[in-house]
C-alpha cells in the first residue's frame, strides 16, 4: 500500500492505495466519482479522460500513485458553482451526445483543446478529439458542440 494525496476537484484527498491501482479506478471506486467512464482495457477510447494539472489525459494510462501531488479535475468538478461550463452547455444545446457514455471524456479533451486554441477550425477540432471514440453520433454534432463553446468565450 502506498499513500497518495491529490487535489481532486479542488478538495485534497488522501488515501492508502495498492500501487497497481489505476487513476481511473481510484477516482471511480475510492472517490466514487463515477462520471469518469471506462470503455476499454487498452487506453484507446478516451472515455476516462480527466484533467491532470490542467491538461487532459486518459486516466487509465497512469497509476494513482503517479498522480500523487497532482491536481485532478473530473467532469464533476468542471462546473463547481452549479452553472454548466460552456462546453457542457454546448454538448447539451448542440446535441453533441446521445448515449452520453463518451461525453465526459469528450468534454475534458475539449477543455484542453480550447485552452490551446480558443478558436479552432473544424479540422483542428477533429484532430484535437481524435483520441476519443464516440460510437453514437458520427462526431458532427460533437464538433458543433465544441464550436458552440468556442464562440461563447
Amino acid at each position, binding site marked *: 500500500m502506498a499513500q497518495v494525496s491529490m487535489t481532486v476537484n479542488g478538495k485534497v484527498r488522501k488515501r492508502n492505495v495498492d500501487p497497481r491501482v489505476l487513476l481511473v479506478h481510484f477516482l471511480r471506486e475510492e472517490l466514487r466519482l463515477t462520471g469518469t467512464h471506462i470503455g476499454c482495457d487498452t487506453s484507446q477510447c478516451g472515455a476516462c479522460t480527466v484533467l491532470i494539472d490542467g491538461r487532459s489525459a486518459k486516466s487509465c494510462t497512469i497509476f494513482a500513485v503517479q498522480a500523487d501531488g497532482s491536481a485532478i479535475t473530473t467532469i464533476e468538478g468542471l462546473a463547481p458553482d452549479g452553472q454548466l461550463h460552456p462546453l457542457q452547455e454546448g454538448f447539451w444545446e448542440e446535441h453533441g*451526445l446521445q448515449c452520453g457514455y463518451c461525453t465526459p471524456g469528450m468534454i475534458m479533451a475539449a477543455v484542453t483543446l480550447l485552452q490551446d486554441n480558443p478558436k479552432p477550425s473544424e479540422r483542428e477540432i477533429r484532430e484535437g478529439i481524435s483520441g476519443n471514440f464516440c460510437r453514437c453520433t458520427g462526431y458532427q454534432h460533437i464538433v458543433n458542440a465544441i464550436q458552440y463553446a468556442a464562440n461563447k468565450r
Partner: protein
Amino acid sequence: MRSSRGLKAVGRNVLRKDGVEKVSGAARYIDDLSFPNLLHARTIRSTIPSGHVVDIQYHGDTTGFTIVDHRDVPGRNIVALIDDDQPCLAERTIRHFAEPIVLLAHENRERLNAVDVQIAYREATPNFDPAASKTSFKTIAIEKGSLDEGFAAADVVVEGEYRAGHQEQLYIEPNGAIAVPAGGGITLYGSMQCPYYVHRALKVLLGLPDHKVRVIQTETGGGFGGKEEYPSMIAGHAALLALKAGRPVKLVYDRVEDMVATTKRHPAVIHHRTGVTRDGRLTAIDIDALFDGGAYATLSAVVLSRGLIHASGPYRCDHVRIRGRAVMTNTPPNGAFRGFGAPQTQLAAEIHMDRIAGQLGLDPVRVREINALRPGDTTATGQRLGDCSALQVLRAAVERSAFKRRRRALAGTNRGIGLALFFHGSGFTGGGEVALASKASLALTGRGARIFVASTEIGQGTRTMHAQIVADTLGVPYDCVEVNAADTGEVPNSGPTVASRTCMVVGRILQRCAEEMRERLGTLTPGEYLRTHGPLVITKQYEKSSAIAWDDHSYRGDAYGSYGWACDVVEVEVDPDTWQVKPTAFTTVHEIGKAIHPMLASGQIEGGSAQGIGYALFEEVVMRDGRMANCQLTNYIVPTTLDTPAIDVVMLENPYKHGPFGAKGVGEMPIDGPAPAIINALRHMGIDLREIPATPEKIMAASAERTGSGITKSRSARRYTKPSSKTLHALREKP
C-alpha cells in the same frame, strides 16, 4: 418545416431530457451503481469451439466463493428468446469458443481473479464454414412471378457474389448487470434495450412468477442491437449467483470479454443473378443468401427474414425469387445489430446494380431511375406501395452532391464517387407487431403527464421524442411531460426497443393515449382535473391499420407498415502507398416521414452513417479457430473523427398516416447505404471489389488484378507503381 405550424415541440430541436445528467457526469450507468454486501462475478468460458466438458477443477483458494454451474438453475437452463436452443450455462456440449460454463462470485476482486478454473474437454471437429453447415436455423423463400418468364425477356444476364464480414456493435459502455435478491425473487439492474426480454428470460431460467422478477434499465451507453438479446444472458448469470449467495451480484464485462463472447452482425454471402434488357430494365432477379448464424439460433431467423425482404433493393421487378438460409457454425452466436440483415443484402444489391450499369454502359443514376420503385408498384413480397420516395431521394442526393459533375471530374484520379439507393421497413416484420401487442400508458400529473413505456433510452432520444409527441397531442409544454424509468415494476410491456419501432409504433400508441387524455380533460387544466376527478391513467394497445395484411407461410403481403427511403453519395480517396481509403465527402438524403426532432434524427443518420463507414472499410473481425483474434480496440478499428467526413444530411418529409405526426422509423436505415456507396466509389476508380470490409490488403489485391491502369495521385499526378512483393507481404501480415 411546413407541417410543424401550430406545434410547439414536434419538429423542433428541444433540449434532450437526459442532457444535464449526461454532461455533468451525474448519469448512472450499470458500473456506477453499488449495493451493500455486493459480490463481484466472473464467467468461466470454454476454450474450445466444439466438444464436451469432461472435468472441472478449481485451483486456488475458493473459500467464501459462490460457485454456480448448470445444476444450480432452478428453472429451465435456456436463454429464452425464439428457439430454446441456447443454454444459459453449458451442460456437457460446447458449441463455440467462450461459451459460459461456470460462474464465480466473491466480494474481493483480487481473490476472484486469483482462482484458476481448469476444464478438461473431449474435443470434436468444429465447422466454421457456413456453406458446409448441416444445421439450418431458418430457410426462407420469397417468390413473385416466374423466373423463367423474366429471364426469357432479358437481353443480358449479370451474375455476382458478394460478401460481408462480421461487425461488432461496439457500444462504448460494455455489457453489464447487477442482480439483487429480494423476497425470494430478483431485481435486476442492467444496461439493455429490452427490459421485458430480460424479464421473460429470468422467469424461465429461475422458474419464478411474473411479480417475483423486476427489471430496471440503467442509463445505457449505446446498444445498436448488441443489447437486444445478450443482456438476458448476463442477467441470468448475475441472478443465478445472487440467488445462491443471497447477496447482490455485479457482473460487468471488460472490453475483451464483451468482444469475444457477445453477439455480432451476421457474416453473409449473397449471390445475384439478374436478367436485364439492353436499355436497363430489370426483368428477373434471382438471389441466394447464406447467413452465418454462429453456434445458436438467437435472432437469426428474423435477421434473415428482414435481410431477404430487403434483398432486391428498392427496385421494381415482376419476376423475383429470393432464397436464403441462416445456418449454424461453431463460432459465437451472431445476433441483432442495427439494420438486422438489411445492410448485408442491400450491400450486395447495390454493388450488383453498379455492375449491371457498367455492363450496359449506363451511368449508375440512370439504371436506378429506370428501376426505382414508384407509388403503386409492388415489392418482392407483393406489397403494393402507396407512398414511395425512392426516386425523390435519388434525385435529391444526385443534385446535392453534384454527382454527375464530380463523377466526370474525378475520373482517372485516385479519387472516386459512388452512390447507393436503399430502403428500410419500420417496425416488426409481417405480423410481428400484432403478436407483440405493445402497450403504453400515460398518467396525468399536476403539470402535465408522465409517460410509462418499456422503450429504453439508449442514446437515440426515446425520452425526448416521446415527450414531444405527448406534449403537442395533449397541448401542454414539453417541460411538463415527464418520462418514467423503464422499470418492469412500473411500466407496461411496450415491446423491445429495436426495429426502428420506438417512434413510429410506440410513439403512436402514446399519441393515442394523449388524444384520449385531452378529451377527458375537456376544458380543465391537469391540476383542476386531478382535484375534481382524482388520478387518471390511460393505457392503450397497438392497433394494426386494417390495410396491413401478411401471410407468414407464403411470405407474401405487407412486410412492413411503412418504409423509409434513402440515398448516400460518398467520395473517397485512396492512398497510393498504403491503400487506405478515406471518405472525403458524404451526402445523404433520408425520407423518414416526419422528423419529430430534426437534430436527434440527423444524429441518428450521422451516427449510423459513421458505423456504415466502419463496416465498409475498417471493422474486420478476425476469426481464428472460431475465436475473435482482434478482440481489443487496438486492433478492431472503429472510425474516429479523422476517419469520418462531415456528413451532409438532408431529410425529406412525406408523412405516414399511421405514424405519430407522420413519423416513420429512422434508427436503422442509415447503416444500409454507406458500405455499398463506398465500394461503388472504388468501382468508379476501376477497383472491382465485392467484399467488405475493404481493407487495404483487399483493395491492393483487387487493384493488382486490374490490367494496365493504376491509381495516380491527383495532386502530384504520381503514377502508381505496383508494390514490391516485400511490401505486399508486409501489408498482408498486418493485423
